[in-house]
């Protein structure tokens, strides 16, 4: 898209008044979105984005500009504005660019550009039919099908040069079910870092049926209890609890700013010894995977917690240097319009030994939280909440009534120590995570786990 000698000129120009690091991030993105609602294809849109972000670091300061163009003149102008913010002598040379390698190498089978619009439409119509066939109580089906083809070039003054072609496909299904005055919703998505072969793994109707089952089952929900209770958290999306309650607090920017409860805990026991947690961007085709992070660093598997002991934080380039650690390939950004920051990729609790059914049987009175609507954490205090979207009471070791309107509230360090059982049914679920105004694709994962006590925020004492 742009030749290496121009890139080198820009990297040098950024450093002309001093600075420690210069970088260029070039992104070309083609996206397509198609939406079904009210039994019809409501909209279909496409977008073409192209731009480039320039970064200059000097001491603890980062200077950033983005330009929606690849014209050399515009880039040099932006580089000039940035370099004028640093007023030092130039002593940094730009090294020759060498192409980076990554352990992440996959094959795309069905590129979005080769898929006909009529086929995309048929996927959404299949979702609508399967949902409404599942139950006459389904009153609305909203489904989005989006695909993305992207090319990213990253180069920096240390001679790093990376290129990655990214293909992503996502289908989301939201349904509304109604019985008398009761209204419930169900949501399920299928998302992979690959093309339309994603539907060879799972048929659109299966996603639709799962979303519909949740909404219909929840129609009979009773009011959730309130107060501290044992909670069994289901596999896959249940991993959002680790993502929120712990993962964000392990991101090195929070650590360096003394805004994390996990500061100065490396090598220390922060969780029950049955907990091992990993961030792994190398898992093939997973939603949070990539060949290179947003700074051109190869994808990496990082053990965060091993048998309860904190092993590593989550680093990008800048926080790794400041902490005198190796980068973990977690410098991620939403687009060329954003500065990279430490972010999780696919983050999960590893398999334990227990049978999920026996975990549930061990609870005499508690909650089985199967699906969540999401969660939020304040990393500085560790305080979190999760909204349960599919939950049940556990009575005498048996999953009984569905419950409505419940959240879980607590703090990360306490919950990690109260994980008392880890199952052997590890699974993953895709999602989006927001931080610092940037939304990126993530995966969460875990087997069934049991936490001895979390406060449940229902309405029934």
């Amino acid at each position, binding site marked *: 898209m742009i030749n290496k000698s121009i890139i080198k000129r820009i990297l040098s120009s950024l450093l002309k008044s001093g600075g420690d690091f210069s970088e260029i991030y070039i992104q070309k993105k083609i996206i397509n979105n*198609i939406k079904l609602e009210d039994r*019809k*294809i409501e*909209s*279909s*849109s*496409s*977008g*073409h984005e*192209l731009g480039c972000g320039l970064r200059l670091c000097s*001491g*603890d*300061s*980062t*200077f*950033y*500009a*983005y*330009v929606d163009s690849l014209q050399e003149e*515009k880039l040099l*102008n*932006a580089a*000039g*504005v*940035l370099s*004028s*913010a640093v007023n030092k002598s130039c002593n940094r040379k730009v090294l020759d660019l060498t192409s980076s390698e990554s352990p992440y190498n996959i094959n795309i089978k069905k590129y979005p550009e080769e898929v006909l*619009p*009529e086929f995309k439409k048929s996927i959404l119509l299949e979702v609508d039919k399967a949902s409404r066939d599942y139950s006459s109580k389904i009153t*609305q089906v909203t489904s989005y099908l989006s695909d993305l083809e992207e090319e990213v070039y990253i180069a920096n003054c240390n001679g790093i040069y990376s290129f990655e072609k990214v293909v992503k496909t996502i289908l989301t299904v939201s349904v*509304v079910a109604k019985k008398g005055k009761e*209204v419930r*919703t169900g949501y399920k998505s299928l998302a992979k870092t690959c093309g339309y072969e994603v539907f060879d793994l799972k048929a659109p109707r299966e996603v639709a049926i799962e979303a519909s089952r949740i909404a219909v089952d929840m129609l009979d929900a009773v009011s*959730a209890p*309130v*107060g*501290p209770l044992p909670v069994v958290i289901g596999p896959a999306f249940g991993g959002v609890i680790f993502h929120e309650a712990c993962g964000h607090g392990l991101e090195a920017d*929070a650590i360096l*700013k*003394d805004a994390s409860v996990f500061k100065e805990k490396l090598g220390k026991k922060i969780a029950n010894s049955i907990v091992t947690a990993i961030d792994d961007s190398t898992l093939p085709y997973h939603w949070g995977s990539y060949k290179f992070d947003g700074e051109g660093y190869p994808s990496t598997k990082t053990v965060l917690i091993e048998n309860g002991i904190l092993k590593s934080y989550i680093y990008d380039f800048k926080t790794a240097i400041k902490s005198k650690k190796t980068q973990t390939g977690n410098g991620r950004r939403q687009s060329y*319009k954003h*500065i990279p920051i430490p972010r999780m990729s696919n983050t999960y609790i590893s398999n334990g030994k227990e049978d999920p059914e026996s975990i549930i049987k061990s609870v005499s009175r508690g909650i089985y939280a199967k699906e969540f*609507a999401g969660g*939020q954490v*304040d990393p500085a*205090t560790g*305080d*979190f*909440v999760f*909204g349960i979207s599919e939950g049940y009471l556990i009575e005498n070791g048996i999953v009984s009534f569905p419950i*409505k*309107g419940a*959240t879980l*509230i607590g*703090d990360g360090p306490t919950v990690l120590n109260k994980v008392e059982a880890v199952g052997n049914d590890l699974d993953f679920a895709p999602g989006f995570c927001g931080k610092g105004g940037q939304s990126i694709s993530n995966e969460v994962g875990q087997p069934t786990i049991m936490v001895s006590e979390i*406060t449940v*925020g*229902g*309405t029934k*004492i």
Partner: protein
Amino acid sequence: MGENKYKSEGTDLVKICKDAASKVDRGAVDEFEIYAANSVQNEIEIYNGDVESLSFSDSTGIGVRIFKNKSIGYAYTEILEENKIRDCIEKAISNSLVTNKEEYNFLPTEGEYKYKSSKIDKNILFREDFLKFSVKSKINIAKKLEILTKEKDKRIAGVDSLIYNDSQSEVAILNSSGFFDKYKATTCFIYVNAISKQNGDISTGDYFGCARSPEDLNLEEISANAVKRSVSILGGKKVKSRKVDIILDPLVSAQFLSVIANGLAADSVQKGKSLFKGRIGDKIFNINIDIIDDGTMPDGLASKPFDGEGVPRGKTVVIKGGVLNTFLYNIYTARKDRTQSTGNAVRASYESSPGVGLSNFYIQPSDNTFEELLGCIDKGFYVMDIIGLHSGANPISGEISVGAKGLWIDKGSLQFPVKEVTIATDILSLCKSIEKVGSDLKFLPSGGYIGSPSLLVRDIMVGGN
């Protein structure tokens, strides 16, 4: 440093719209619309007295909506080269081939405007004095806020997030039935999160300010509020689960109002995704409360002369005296309900076609002071902040359960700090339980510009021990 040099000379949206329009093959479409937007942004992050990051941008894009055989297609591009604009138009046309035909799909006509012309003075949206502020002076404003925040109380241990950002934006819409207009706007926003520590306990409190010009940011007030929200929760504990009366801080009320507002957009109502469907004329609140959407409010940051499809904005009383008066409409939903558009077509950027959304949306304040509300409570909870609204409130089913922190109330006075508790209810019960409205209206810039005063709400379940 190069002041304002970053803005490229002469990004001319008029020319961009007209050029794009000239490339549309009029034989291939029935109607079309070009939406062009340019935004020049500046963002500054401060940490420990230094610039942590400073970023600039100047970007332009266009979105093309075409109407053909009563179907709509949409495409956008950030690359404004001639062939890419042609590709974009082609993409929009091919996208129209898969969307459903509907009789309501055609461009707005003047007879469908509820507000015939906009009463807003365009000069209010764009403040000339905004341009006076150099990057350096904006850095100094941000640094000053960090200092003020740290000075306010010795329990403040640090400021982990201090962000200033601003933008000068311009929007133009041109359509094939002859509409062509544009406006410019300036906005700035500053945010601080203060961490406080005492006896091993940690607490955070954040606050923000937003305005049309940095001149109007009140740093004293912002720092004082962030510090108050942080230190007053120090040493907070759980309380026993029980139903009590609560006071919602204006920023908390505004967040709940945004969930309620979801169900007042005609789009959600028509699709059966609103609890307010079929309830026009019903008394939703027990008290005489007014809720207003005013797209022309002079000091409203969501004010614009026209909406995302060129329809004039106005002032719509959605809830009048506690009774549901009307929903909010764009052209498509108005045609479906055989009414007029209230000018509530919104689009986040050129990336999206117009949906239905809020402008300046607020609960009309009364003259009750905060102390008067407090005086009405025997045992209760003053909710200063909530967490987890996005996952804990479902606007379709109405369920609400979120994390909360604040101060316990006993016999009309504020007592000890409370944290790690939940408050749970549902949307319709919440509306019915509001007993008094305060006078301290405060707006929150989030999906529109949403405002509420403090609210006194009876009998809400607080979950703790």
